């Protein structure tokens, strides 16, 4: 577990401390009436990490591992079951609703699906300028000017032509640029990028990724980059954290984790990534079975039913995240 004293260190822009989110099982009214005990989806079950200013942390895992929920908790788009998130040393859950709305000027998110994250009935120029209108109360003309500028910056050109268009009139890549522009228009410090390229076409992905790297420099940003694709994280992340069933199983500098994966799950994940090379043959074994349900996660180490090197203790005790090398944390008894 992370030491609480870390919070004092101002170098850490954001610190997540034992964050948990358990969703009550979605049931109808009738089931609630009759059910004896309530089930929970343990989407995030005790996650701790911190991000330094200017750093890109990759949060990697399969679908349903809780990475997206973590991203939303950090921005307080969801209220956590327990745990805390400190931003600039202050818990974001301590803000009032109004204060939190103000905070969002500096904390931004880019969603996976750009089409779904734009209102179909709002022209994109309006959409991009809207955060400014909410936070700065600048005159309309000025908001429009800034919006046009940022549109140019993210490559939405010609900006004045696209300003009045609606989302369905744009291509997928352009829409993602709109979303990025909207996230950056208020000059935020910290951005959660929730699988920003997963929906994009192959040839567009690289462009968006490039854009994000370039804008990071320009706007002096800090990213939490959420992805299911280890290969992508390679091009943007400084550090990665691997999540499995609501927990971080391994975390460390990108090179370190990729070259020397310690946790068996990390190894598996790295091996499973398809390699665009016909001569490449997988050597690492792929485990059988699929990811278990987060409603009743396995006892002990959550990966043990699929782990090739599982021991008896793995099914009883839960391994804690410990620092193996400097900055390289692993939750495994190995």
């Amino acid at each position, binding site marked *: 577990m992370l030491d609480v004293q870390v919070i004092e260190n101002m170098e850490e822009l954001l610190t997540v401390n034992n964050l948990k989110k358990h969703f009550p099982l979605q049931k109808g009214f009738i089931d609630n009436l009759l059910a004896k005990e309530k089930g929970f989806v343990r989407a995030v079950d005790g996650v701790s990490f911190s991000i330094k200013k200017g750093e890109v942390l990759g949060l990697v895992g399969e679908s349903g591992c809780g990475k997206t929920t973590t991203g939303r908790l950090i921005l307080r788009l969801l209220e956590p079951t327990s745990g805390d998130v400190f931003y600039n040393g202050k818990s974001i859950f301590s803000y009032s609703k109004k204060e939190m709305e103000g905070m*969002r000027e500096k904390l931004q998110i880019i969603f996976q699906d750009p089409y779904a*994250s734009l209102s179909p009935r709002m022209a994109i120029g309006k959409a991009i300028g809207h955060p400014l209108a909410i936070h700065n109360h600048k005159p309309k003309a000025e908001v429009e000017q800034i919006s046009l500028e940022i549109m140019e910056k993210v490559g939405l050109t010609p900006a004045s032509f696209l300003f009045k268009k609606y989302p369905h009139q744009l291509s997928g890549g352009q829409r993602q640029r709109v979303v990025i522009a909207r*996230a950056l228009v208020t000059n935020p410090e910290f951005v959660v990028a929730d699988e920003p390229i997963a929906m994009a076409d192959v040839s567009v992905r690289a462009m968006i990724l490039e854009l994000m790297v370039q804008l990071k420099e320009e706007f002096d940003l800090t990213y939490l980059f959420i992805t299911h694709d280890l290969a992508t994280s390679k091009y943007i992340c400084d550090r990665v954290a691997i999540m499995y069933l609501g927990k971080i199983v391994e975390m460390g500098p990108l090179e370190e984790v990729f070259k020397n994966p310690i946790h068996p799950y990390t190894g598996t994940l790295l091996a499973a990534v398809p390699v665009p090379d016909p001569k490449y043959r997988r050597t690492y074994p792929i485990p059988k079975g699929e990811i278990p349900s987060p409603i009743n996660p396995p006892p002990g180490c959550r990966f043990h039913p699929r782990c090739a090197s599982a021991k008896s203790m793995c099914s009883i005790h839960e391994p804690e995240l410990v620092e193996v090398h400097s900055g390289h944390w692993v939750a495994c008894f190995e």
Partner: protein
Amino acid sequence: MLYSPAKAMAKALSRFAGMGKKYGVEWWILVIGALIILAIVYMALFPGVIAPFNPHNQNAGPQLLHPGGEHIMGTDNLQRDVWSRIVYGSQTILRVAILAAIISSVFGITLGLVSGFSGGFFDRIVSLIMDSLYSFPGLILAIAFAAMLGPGVINITLAVAVIYIPTYFRLVRGQTLAIKEELYVEAARSIGASGFTILWRYIFPNVIATTVVVFTLNVADAIMIEAALTYLGLGLPPSIVDWGMDLAMGKKFLPSGQWWLITFPGAMISILALGFTMLGEGLAEILNPRLLER
């Protein structure tokens, strides 16, 4: 540049044809519906121009005259001209149906938005009441309300309006709940928009588009309910010309061979309802932004 009406007309026409090409059959359904409505609205606005007689004139012609000649739809037993009554009757039915739809949509949409967005106990109670009302036969409810309020245009409008509030409420609440879960609403929250801003700028514009379609279909329905109430004798005083009432009055002549007394008012009710339904059907397809992706 000089404004040229001919050019503007040509432009409008080509645009019109272009729409037909773009949207296909649905566009023509919409156009036919709109033309029917326009024709009947014209009737209602300028009845004096179209109708050859005063609808109350009890000496327009001989009693129970067959359609044809001077009286294209014949005359009734009080020697009134059926066609003139049809023309004037359009005023009543249009006024009631459209006004009722407006009243119920305003109430229903507001309640639905607020209830769906706020959630919680308020939402539960309102939903329960609305669902109960919705599941109950609307006509029977309208009968009870109309009987309670007594005859009169305003009263019948209210009786019709009441039964459609749940329709809008359910639609809007459902949409609000769905849109509330949409990513773009979460995105709006993530940029710090307040509850009201989200409701007004993000949810409302997306909800209202679907209600337009429902509104037109609703008017079609309200037309039939209005006519049903007056047909049952629960609606209006005789000084108001109304198709449903003429239908009810003509009913007793059914076995005597005076078919025109029931055929024409009933057909008009159907045609007007058809106009609004076709408009709604067409709009439903055309307002659907996914159409072009098919």
